[in-house]
């Protein structure tokens, strides 16, 4: 069984209140030097069968139509070894 990861992040121009809240909290906790934080989602998919081009194409489509809302989010599909 292979693992494919889909990372979904808000588009850069879209407000990310969660990331902002984390970033604002960091200095209070004594962590400096973080200029920006964005928070997104990570999906770990366990795929039956081989992760060939066809499978990846399907996962790409799945990410595009379902895992991400492309009105406001971008995504990346990665095969994990």
């Amino acid at each position, binding site marked *: 069984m292979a693992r494919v990861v889909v990372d979904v992040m808000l588009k850069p121009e879209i407000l990310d*209140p*969660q990331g902002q*809240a*984390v970033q604002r*909290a960091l200095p*209070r*906790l004594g962590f400096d030097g973080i200029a920006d934080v964005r*928070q997104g989602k990570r999906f770990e998919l366990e795929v039956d069968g081989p992760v060939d081009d066809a499978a990846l194409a399907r996962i790409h489509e799945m990410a595009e139509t379902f895992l991400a809302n492309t009105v406001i989010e971008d995504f990346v599909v990665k095969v994990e070894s």
Partner: protein
Amino acid sequence: MTTRIGVVTFPGTLDDRDALRAVRLAGAEPVPLWHRDKDLKQVDAVVLAGGFSYGDYLRAGAISRFSPVTEPIIEQAKAGMPVLGICNGFQILTEAHLLPGAMLRNNHLHFICREQRLRVENADTAWTADYERGQEISVPLKNMDGRYVADERTLDELEAEGRVAFRYLDVNPNGSLRDIAGITNAAGNVVGLMPHPEHAVEPLIGTGGTDGLGFFTSILKKLVAA
């Protein structure tokens, strides 16, 4: 001397005014505490009220746990000061490790607001002395991240020590393990629960019952006796 009960307002706290009202209706002196306060204004007990402190961003309660006011609360709670965490307050208490376990997104993934029946499993804590063990009460419940989880060992320990303070009846509204609605620390001074007793202190408002008032009269009696 009046009994002073502090209610903390973090940015995004919502039920602070209700908690202050409940304290007042029980006959104690409500003392508002601000998240930037570094001292607790000599209160005798603290209520961490419900809401979405810091928007519940990151994890419910995670950011508030690091607020200035939280430090002295953790310190004094460990020294025995009574602390009640309601909903978001319960989440903060687990994030601060004053209570074991953690709160996760409801198993059905929706916010849930309902009139919830509970059983009081431990009537010996600072906040539950006015109830009978086994008493069934009804108070509003409303949360997004109300699923109580802990590992098996912790759960067994809680059960064995009688530290499960409240259990859900009829329905488990959020997938909490072993129907746990609230727990206490070993000393019984720190109590956390998801349902909202502060919304059930007047006959007309909320579910229309006053089943929640006992939390506030319990603590008042305890502090007056002390």
